[in-house]
C-alpha cells in the first residue's frame, strides 16, 4: 500500500496536537483542517476542535468541502460559537493551539499573509490575515506550516510585512510586547519539521525520507540550527492514513501543494 506526501503531511500536522487541547484553524487551510480531524479521530479524542470560519465545536463533517464556510463543517456539532465568542476566547488565552501559515515565514516564525514587496505597490498582494494577527499574540501555542518551502520564497530571512507574530519582532519579543501566548512551537513544511530553540529561532528536527539537509538549506532564507538527533518523520500509521482518507474524500488538502509535490509517494513498510 502506498500513500502520498499530502497524507503524511497532514498526519505530521495532526501530531502537533496534544489530547485535551483547545485547537483552532483558520479558513483556507485544508491541511490544518484535515489534520485536526485526524487528531481527534486518533490520538486526541478529547481535544476541543473549533472548526475554522464555522466556529463549530467538535463537528463530524461527512467530508471536507473546498470552502471553509460550508454547513457540512458543522454537521454533528452540538454547539457553534459566535464570531465574537471564539475571538474573545482566543484573546483571553482560552485557546491552546492555532495553525497558521504564511506566504512568507521568517526564522522567528513571524508570518506575512498581507503583501510581498513594497506596501504601496506590492509585487504580490496576498489574501490577508483574517483573524490571525491579534490572536497570534494570545493563543497558547502555534503550529506553523507551509507546503511551499521548496519554492525558496516562503522561508525568508525577513518578512516584507509582519501580519502574525512569531517569537521575536523588530518591536521586541513576546515578553516585551506583553503577550501571554507562547508563539510558534512547530513549523511543518513539505521538506521537514522544525521546532524553536531558546532564542526563538527555528531548528530542524526531522525531514521526510526523500529530502536531504541540503534540500532544506537551499530552500531556506534564514539560518537555522539542526537538532543533534535530526531524524526522519515517523511514517503514518494505518489508523492515521485511514482517518485522512475518511475525513477528506475529496482530497481538498491537495489544493495546498504544487502538483509536482503530489507525486511524492511512499510505501507502507511491512513489519
Amino acid at each position, binding site marked *: 500500500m502506498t500513500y502520498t506526501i499530502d497524507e503524511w503531511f497532514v498526519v505530521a500536522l495532526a501530531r502537533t496536537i496534544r489530547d485535551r487541547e483547545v485547537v483552532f484553524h483558520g*479558513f*483556507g*487551510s*485544508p491541511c490544518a483542517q484535515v489534520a485536526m480531524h485526524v487528531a481527534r479521530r486518533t490520538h486526541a479524542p478529547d481535544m476541543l476542535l473549533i472548526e475554522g*470560519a*464555522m*466556529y*463549530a465545536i467538535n463537528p463530524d463533517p*461527512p*467530508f471536507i*468541502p*473546498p*470552502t*471553509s*464556510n*460550508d*454547513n*457540512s463543517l*458543522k454537521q454533528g456539532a452540538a454547539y*457553534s460559537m*459566535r*464570531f*465574537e465568542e471564539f*475571538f474573545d476566547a482566543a*484573546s483571553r488565552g482560552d485557546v491552546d493551539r492555532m495553525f497558521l501559515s504564511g506566504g512568507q515565514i521568517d526564522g522567528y516564525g513571524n508570518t506575512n499573509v*498581507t*503583501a510581498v514587496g513594497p506596501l*504601496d*505597490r*506590492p509585487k*504580490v*498582494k*496576498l*489574501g*490577508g*490575515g*483574517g*483573524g490571525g*494577527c*491579534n*490572536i*497570534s*499574540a*494570545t493563543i497558547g501555542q502555534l503550529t506553523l506550516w507551509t507546503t511551499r518551502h521548496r519554492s525558496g520564497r516562503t522561508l525568508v530571512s525577513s518578512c516584507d*510585512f*509582519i*501580519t*502574525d*507574530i512569531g517569537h521575536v519582532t523588530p*518591536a*521586541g519579543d*513576546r515578553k516585551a*510586547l*506583553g*503577550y501571554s501566548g507562547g508563539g510558534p512551537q512547530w513549523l511543518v513544511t513539505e521538506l521537514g519539521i522544525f521546532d524553536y530553540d531558546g532564542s526563538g529561532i527555528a531548528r530542524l528536527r526531522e525531514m521526510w525520507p526523500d529530502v536531504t539537509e541540503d534540500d532544506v538549506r537551499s530552500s531556506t532564507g534564514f539560518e537555522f540550527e539542526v537538532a543533534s538527533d535530526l531524524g526522519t518523520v515517523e511514517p503514518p500509521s494505518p489508523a492515521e492514513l485511514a482517518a485522512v482518507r475518511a475525513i477528506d*474524500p*475529496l482530497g*481538498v488538502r491537495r*489544493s*495546498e501543494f504544487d502538483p509536482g509535490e503530489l507525486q511524492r509517494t511512499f510505501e507502507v513498510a511491512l513489519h
Partner: protein
Amino acid sequence: MFLDPDKRVDLSTAAGMVADGDVVALGGGLSARLPMALIREMIRQGRRNLHVVGSAHSLDVDMLVAAGAITVCEESYVGFEQDFGLAPAYRRAAESGTIQVKESCCVTILTQLRAAEMGVPFLPVRGIKGTDMRRLHPEYAEMTCPFTGEVLVVVPPLRPDVALLHAPLGDTRGNLYMEQPYVLDEHFASAARSVVATVDKIVATEELVERGITIPAHLVRGVAEVPFGAHPASSYPHYAYDRSATGAYIRAAGTQESLESYLDEWVRSTDEAGYRDRQGSAELERLTTWSESVDAWKGLFA
C-alpha cells in the same frame, strides 16, 4: 431605529440606499451569505468610491473592485481560499495602486464595531503591537492601562453608513433569520447607521419566530426579496455554494478585459431574473439538493 411596519422594497431601491462614497459593511463571509444580488445591482447602478469593511470575503469584494466601485478596502481577507486562490481583480488593483488597501484583522474590526455599538470613542485591543498593521492604519493610537501600566493599541469606532446583509428568510417588517456562522452580521447591524437586506424568501413572522430571529426588524431599513440573492455564495438552508459558477468568474477574471465581458454578460446587460435564467434553473435547483444525501452534497463540490 426603523419602525415602519412594512420595509419591503425592490432590489433597485435597496441598492439605491447605498450612496457613492459610503462606508459599506458586507455581510456573510467567504462563500456564505454574500449579498451578491445587491453587489450586482450596485454595479448596474454604477456605484463609485465605496469604502468596504468586513472580515474574510471573496467574490463580493472582487467583483466590486472589478467594476471600479471601490476606493478603500478594509477587509481582513479577500480571496478564494486554497480552491481558487488569490482574488484576481482585487490583487491587480492592489498591486497597481488603484484601490487603497487598509487590510485589517477580524479582532480589530470586531473591536471597532463594538466601540460603535457601545457608544464609546475608543477600545483597546490586545494584539497589533509587533505586527506591521499600523503601517496600514495610522489612525490607531496607543494608551497606557491605568491599572496595569501596559501599553495597548486602541482603535476608533467603526460605524458603517450601511450594512448589506443577505438572509435566507425574512418578514415584511425586516426581521431576518440566518444560520450560523453569523460572522459579523449581528455587529454590523448594530453598529451601522442602517441595514439593507436581501432575503431568498419573505415568510410570515411566525415562521421566523419558530426558527429564531437573528437580526431584529428595528435595525433594518429595507428588505428586498431576491431568490438566489446570495448566488453563487451559499444561503443555507436553501442552497449550497456554487463552485462551478465561481470557477467561471475566476476563469474570466484573468484579465480586466475578459472580466469586463463577464460583467457585461452576467450583470450589466440583465437584471436578477435574467441572471437566474442565464445561470439556468436546473443548475440553481441542483444547489438545493445538498440535503438529500451526503453524496449529493459532496457531489456539488467534486
